[in-house]
């Protein structure tokens, strides 16, 4: 029911969408996932023309959305939207919020609209809040009212723009439950979300967006289970990276340590893992015959807690960690004790040691 071809959106010099193509069929539940700033929300907002695309084509049914002759407000009536910040009409009660559209736009009798609004409120579990004002509701309640407000227009599709991102963690589940319920009843939905487990559970298809395009799409089992492309894998496993470059024997070890500690704190690494990393880095650098060009890469996968440390140094082919290589045996033993696996490879002019840091328990 929605076809998108070559959709581009540019803000000044920044091209946010670089040619998005997709097809959304009736009854599908599409999750849009991906790192922040890759255009997921912009793409969603293009679908109901809250953002005007720079180029491309969007068909709603068979109506071209970007055609000047198209009655856009009429099309929007068929497409509900739920916002990250709820956007309930602050001057109206819950009932007023839900009935404004049906009465003003669909020509419903106020009494009928109110009766329907009460049904929908019961559906989202807020029948007792009909007379309340938005500022008297919690975030989760507001978002459920916003969903009821969408449903009151009898939409053919609902667009969710990060519906739980602004919520207290304790309120996420009540909103997700309502959306899950809608999915069960066959509502067509497009959901921008960071709730991976939720996306995996309810989607019929998942779009992984990165770099302004749909980088990979597929059924949730594939995207979350065995994604094909490296960016998708990195995202799904939630791999955080830190690259450190040393260009001089007289490097500043304390600055290096500070950066590693910061990385650990930001991604909530277990304290022991951070300590292990600090000593590993120090020993590895001490073992290097030259520190004129050493690159250290840290990768932390949030999903399984794996921490990988890659040390790549330019120089004569030698594995500094090989036993009996003439180097400091104590240092090697120390490194072995803190890792589960150590690999060596020669890549071009560089010696590459890959260390899998032992899991903290």
């Amino acid at each position, binding site marked *: 029911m929605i076809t998108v071809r070559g959709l581009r959106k540019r803000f000044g010099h920044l091209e946010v969408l670089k040619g998005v193509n997709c097809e959304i069929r009736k009854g599908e539940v599409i999750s849009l996932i991906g790192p922040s700033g890759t255009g997921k929300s912009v793409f969603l907002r293009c679908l*109901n023309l*809250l953002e005007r695309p720079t180029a491309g084509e969007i068909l709603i049914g068979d109506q071209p959305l970007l055609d000047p002759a198209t009655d856009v*407000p*009429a099309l*929007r*009536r068929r*497409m*509900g*939207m739920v*916002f990250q*910040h*709820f*956007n*309930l*009409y*602050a*001057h109206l*009660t819950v009932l007023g919020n839900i009935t*404004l*559209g049906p009465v*003003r*736009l669909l020509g419903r009798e106020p009494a009928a609209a109110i009766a329907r609004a009460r049904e929908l409120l019961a559906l989202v579990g807020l029948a007792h809040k009909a007379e309340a*004002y938005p*500022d*008297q509701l919690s975030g989760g309640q507001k978002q459920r009212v*916003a969903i009821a*407000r*969408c449903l009151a*227009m009898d939409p053919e599709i609902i667009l969710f723009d990060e519906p739980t991102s602004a919520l207290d963690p304790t309120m996420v589940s009540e909103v997700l439950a309502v959306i899950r319920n809608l999915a069960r009843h066959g509502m067509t939905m497009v959901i921008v979300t960071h709730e991976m487990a939720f996306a995996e559970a309810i989607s019929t298809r998942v779009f992984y967006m990165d770099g302004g395009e749909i980088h990979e799409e597929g059924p949730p089992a594939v995207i979350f289970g065995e994604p094909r492309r490296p960016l998708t894998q990195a995202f799904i496993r939630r791999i955080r990276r830190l690259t450190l470059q040393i260009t001089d024997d007289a490097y500043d070890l304390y600055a290096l340590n500070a950066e590693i500690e910061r990385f650990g704190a930001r991604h909530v690494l277990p304290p022991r893992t951070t300590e292990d990393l600090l000593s590993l880095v120090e020993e590895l650098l001490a073992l290097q015959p030259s520190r004129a060009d050493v690159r250290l890469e840290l990768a932390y996968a949030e999903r399984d807690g794996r921490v990988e440390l890659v040390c790549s140094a330019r120089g004569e082919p030698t594995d500094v960690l090989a036993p009996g290589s003439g180097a400091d045996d104590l240092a090697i033993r120390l490194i072995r004790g803190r890792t589960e696996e150590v690999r060596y490879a020669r890549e071009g002019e560089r010696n590459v040691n890959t260390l899998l840091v032992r899991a903290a328990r």
Partner: protein
Amino acid sequence: MLSSPLRPAVHLLLAALLLVAGVGAAEPGTLRGLDDLTRARIALVAGSSHDEHVARRYPQAQVLQFKATPDVVLAVSTGKADVAFLALESVREIARTTPNLAILVPEAYRSPMGAAFRPDDTTLRPAYNAFVRGLRESGVYEAMQQRWFKEGARDLPPLPPRGQGPVLRLGITASKGLPWTGVRNGAFTGFEVELAERFAASLGRPLELVDLDVSGQIAALASGRIEAIACLLVMTEERRKRVAFSDELIAFVACVVTRQDRIAGAAPAATATPTPEAGLPLGQRIRANLVDEGRYRLILEGLFVTCVISVLATLFGTVFGGVVCAGRMSPRPLLRQAAAVYIWCLRGVPVLVVLMIIYYVLFASFHVSPILVAAVAFGLNAAAYIAEMLRSAIQSVDRGQLEAGVAGGFTRAQAFRLIVLPQALRQVLPVYKGEVISLFKMTSVVGYIAVQEITKAGDIIRSRTFDAFIPLLVTAAIYLVLAWLIAWALERVELRVTPPHQRQGTGAAP
């Protein structure tokens, strides 16, 4: 101690302080005659002939310029000025109500007085001169002088009927006071008024008297608001450059008055009181200021005019403010720019100046009711402020509100009207209330363009009673009550549009 660059500034400050202290400490000595005026504080009506005379003769004196005769009288009787220059005829009238004034010099100078016409006038001035000659020959003029100046008449005699032709607009100054011109029972009266009435009748034209301050007369004549100045002006050199005078009607005798206890050789001022009216019992003063000669009617009429101007200006200002706000927020740069310039101008120019520009410049040659001019001027001023209030209120409504409406299928206009505007209006109400009250109070300056609103009504009463206390207090009380009523009414509206659970916060009356 002090760094040297600061020292000159400190010296300047000290000098200024000494100057202020010195002025404040000036010992009020006794006065003997004109020679004592050299360094005195002299009160006079701004734009009057005394102004020129004093500037020439007493360049060292400190001149205090007031808007009208009663203010001059008050300045002397309360000791704010040492002496005042007044017309001898006025003093006779003033002496009745202000017993502690005394004449220091009965005739400081004498100069001819006459009506004034535009310099290029070729018909009205000869007609006036001929009319006055006829009046003198028939003896009517002498009778008039006798009645007003010697017998102290207060009401107009029966006058010849008014004509039918085009309206003759003549300028007078009601605050000049009797016997020249005053207000009794809500109507103009006095020597000048009778003269003007007779002149209009001789031309067979109906008369309209435009009440302007002395300083505003010549400007009004030049801009065509009035055809001639019927309040008799002293023919000074300065004025001759701007207007053409009629033949001399009467000799103006300027006299110098001072407080009785300041005159040398006078009895010790044991009974002298700081204000002239304080000696009378309060009931009598209230009666004199509010009841006698139907003065309460002046106040009621003034109140009505004030209300009309305020209501019209508020309505016009609100609607036009909305228009300016729309321009200010328009997607078209030209409209945005125009609205910004408008706001910049109207917020930067005092409303009184705007009022006078509209009255004396823009509408100079159309005869629009000054009440309407005032409503437009205050409306234009309020519109600039209201436009900015609205804009900030609209901008303070979260963008998501409009987006939610648009995403829900409303057009932008519908979403604005149904969702953004109600929230913006609710926000703007408290500041709007303040603006309406301040507009209402600002209307007190429209006396400048010959509108008799409530402040001006108080001024006119003061010109008859020379009592500052009661008229000012009554005026203040009326403003206070009305401002409170406006606040109360707008707070009711505020309360109505505020959801019940948010109401404790609003400062509305219960």
